């Protein structure tokens, strides 16, 4: 409550004075301290990725102290008995030592891996929020594109990290990547030879992806994240429509202390969740996989979940190979792997421009749209989500087949049919749901909300009593305009019918003083 700047000549004031003499901080600091941020749970999803990334830098630095990116052949003599005497690369040996002979090394490795999964999962969830609420619209298309790039750099950063330990699973992943690279017309063999310095797997690939994994890509990620967050700051965050909220203002609380405290708290919470998961859930037990050998493979070889969608597409794509013997072959894997991945990069990048072109909507939008209010976009998004989920499930279809006792040969066919048919059905169903929700909003605004009270009139007709949201005209209608925000649909949202009991673990008997204003806001939201 107390503001320490200005009047009291405390030590802080003196220090502030000294700093201001040198850096002229008072003005910019005030702007920063007072900046207003809107508050909504869905605005916190990107932070999960941001704070996971910070933890990735920290845990990754620890791992880099012990990991040796070398493919020199050594014989293992470490602590893990089942691998003693086995020939392996130095990279794999140091990963094993990291897991068994470095104090807390296994914990750190698992923390790094879980943080990666959370980073990528949070990017996806955050991206869905941005998409479905239309937050990517002008003036924020640039930041949307940066976000897409962040996903793809993270994608390869994660894949390279998965490849570094040089265990059986990472080698299999690299093998598949090599096969995909080879499939590119004309440049494929050269590209593969450049990646592996000759024939796969060679002896250089680990040191090459190491420098990419620990230096180049983290640097790119750091730069992109800085611009990404900076743009959110400079362009000011979008906000939901609501009482008093317009395209030209931001309603919320100040950056300090409220926003920053919540951010710090959330950061620690995210780290706590990752830390707990790193200790309790085993991830990527490389000691079971053995060193990578070209003739060795495991059933249920999967990439991490964010790559699984691509692997699923590769599994589903039919065996269509174009051949003009003996001069030219276009391998089947080119389509899902190279063309598919290319489209997955380009289409999202272009989406804001495409939507602008089709809707001819060139205005700036600082108020978010409820998903239901843009049925076409929401349906399109759901279509992509379903497509992606089928891809992911197909990426693990052998595990699925085995655990749920489905024929392995039925899974790809189910996937092939599903990935074509289900997105179309999803589009239609989502579209209808959106229209239904829109209509219901209008109906409540026009006729009031359903009270659940059934009455019978003298003629014997049953009807439900409606609570109008404003003073009705002689026909019982209210002329309320929909303002893009939640329309109350239950009596207790308009102040009637308080919940019988409050409190989570135990009852809080005394009524809260602070509830009144909010309830009023909600009632009034229908009038603005």
């Amino acid at each position: 409550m107390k503001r320490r700047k200005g009047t009291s000549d405390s030590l802080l004031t003196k220090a502030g004075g000294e700093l201001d003499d040198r850096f002229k901080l008072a003005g910019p600091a005030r702007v920063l301290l007072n900046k207003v941020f809107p508050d909504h749970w869905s605005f916190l999803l990107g932070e999960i990725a941001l704070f996971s990334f910070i933890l990735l830098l920290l845990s990754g630095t620890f791992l880099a102290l012990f990991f040796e990116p070398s493919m020199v052949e050594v014989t293992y003599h470490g602590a893990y008995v089942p691998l003693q005497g086995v020939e392996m690369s130095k990279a794999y040996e140091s990963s094993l030592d990291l897991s068994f002979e470095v104090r807390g090394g296994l914990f750190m490795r698992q923390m790094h891996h879980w943080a990666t999964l959370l980073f990528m999962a949070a990017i996806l969830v955050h991206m869905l929020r941005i998409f479905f609420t239309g937050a990517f619209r002008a003036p924020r298309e640039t930041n949307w594109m940066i976000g897409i790039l962040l996903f793809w750099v993270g994608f390869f950063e994660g894949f390279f990290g998965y490849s570094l330990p040089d265990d059986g699973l990472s080698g299999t992943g690299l093998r598949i990547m090599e096969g995909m690279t080879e499939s590119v017309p004309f440049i494929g063999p050269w590209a593969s030879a450049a990646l592996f310095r000759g024939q796969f797997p060679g002896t250089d690939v680990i040191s090459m992806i190491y420098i990419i994994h620990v230096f180049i890509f983290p640097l790119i990620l750091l730069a992109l994240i800085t611009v990404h967050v900076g743009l959110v700051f400079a362009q000011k965050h979008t906000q939901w429509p609501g009482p008093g909220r317009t395209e030209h203002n931001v309603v919320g609380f100040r950056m300090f202390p409220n926003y920053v405290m919540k951010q710090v708290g959330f950061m620690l919470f995210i780290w706590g969740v990752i830390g707990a998961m790193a200790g309790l859930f085993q991830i990527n037990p490389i000691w079971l996989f053995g060193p990578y050998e070209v003739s060795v493979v495991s059933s249920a070889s999967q990439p991490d979940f964010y790559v699984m969608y691509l692997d699923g597409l590769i599994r589903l794509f039919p065996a269509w190979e174009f051949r003009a013997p003996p001069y030219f072959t276009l391998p089947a894997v080119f389509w899902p792997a190279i063309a598919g991945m290319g489209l997955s990069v380009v289409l999202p990048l272009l989406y804001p421009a495409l939507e602008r072109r089709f809707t001819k909507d060139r205005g700036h939008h600082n108020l978010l749209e409820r998903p239901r209010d843009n049925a076409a976009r929401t349906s399109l998004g759901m279509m992509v989500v379903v497509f992606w989920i089928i891809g992911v499930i197909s990426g693990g279809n052998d595990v699925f087949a085995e655990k749920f006792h489905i024929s392995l040969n039925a899974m790809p066919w189910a996937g092939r049919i599903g990935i074509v048919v289900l997105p179309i059905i999803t589009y239609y169903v989502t579209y209808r749901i959106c229209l239904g929700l829109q209509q219901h909003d209008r109906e409540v605004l026009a006729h009031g909300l359903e009270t659940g009270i059934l009455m019978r009139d003298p003629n014997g007709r049953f009807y439900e009593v409606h609570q109008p949201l404003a003073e009705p005209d002689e026909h019982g209608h209210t002329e309320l305009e929909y303002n893009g925000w939640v329309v109350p649909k239950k009596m207790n949202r308009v102040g009637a019918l308080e919940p019988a009991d409050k409190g989570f673990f135990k009852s809080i008997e005394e009524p809260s003083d602070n509830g009144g204003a909010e309830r009023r806001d909600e009632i009034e939201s229908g009038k603005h």
Partner: protein
Amino acid sequence: MSAHNDGDRAEPESVDLSDPKLSRFEVYKEGLRRDDIEIIHYEPRFPKPGTKAEKRMERIVGGFFLLSGLFATAFVVAYIWWPWEYDGPATWRDPETWYTPVLGATLGLSLLLFAVGVLTWAKKLLPIEELVQDRHDGGSSPDDRRIAEATVDGLVEDMGLKRRPFLVKAALLGAAPLGLAAVAPLGALLKDPGDMLTVTGWNAERYNDGKPIRLMLKDGAMVRPDMVSVGGQITAFPAIDHGATNQFPTSPILLIHLRDEDAQILHGNLYPMYQDVDALWGNFVAYSKICTHVGCPTSLYEQQSQRLLCPCHQSQFNVVDNAAPVFGPATRHLPILPMTVDDEGFFIATSDFLVPPGPAFWNRPSLPEEDEK
């Protein structure tokens, strides 16, 4: 930073900051005003300081912090003193198997508790506030734009970009090769793939001075027919230097000993190119182990259904039909390594694969036989 411009605001609203009677709150509000912020709602969470409820909330938040510190201490103690070194097979009774879970639980709880402390502080002790700030969306003011335009025009004029087209063209012509020079060193990565995708370790001329190459197990033992019983399979490598290592990634084969009836079917189905070189030996067949899809080892041999399955993308190959693909994304059969048995009773390859094993590439030499199925 947002485009705030203190000068935009009309002066009359501002308060005289030199006025000694101004309260701290009024000075603060003047700051808000200069940032185009208005307070809609502001009330302390506990209007009367020092009430029981407030004290209680303080105790709760403080408790979270102290508990967090306790768990952080536990983490440090466990990190240093908990037995952690792996020493062979362990059950849940061995404390070292609990090292990682204990680290996770203590550090996780410590972070979570501190987080909950900070968040509770923010939610339950900070004043309730709602402010509104002007967004100043859109471009700069017309004045700013005009000034910027004039400045840039002046720049162009000063440099004479319009008057001196030759200079511009010459600069571009010079810069293009310079850009090329900047990326040229990346060419060091390039390496001629040569015949790396078509020649394998079974090439006797290159790797064994023209002498036939024997089939070898991973441990170096040469393969004899009696080592694989009916319905069995064995992974074999070329018996050359480093033949069983990753230096020869397209060489591993799966040597299968078929049952009589299955071998008959395979003999009947054999592609002409394999018949010509007599690729099988008795009931034995040697298929490339590298999947023709993207190169995983196709090593799931089902001895009853006579299929080979690739665990990566579920391509399935018919063992009694040249390992032609029967399911999944693979499009080409697994090449057969033509082999026989030498005088000493060991398997030898009679030539390299007739078609390149492993995943396809654009100029892969393909034979008409491959289109049969």
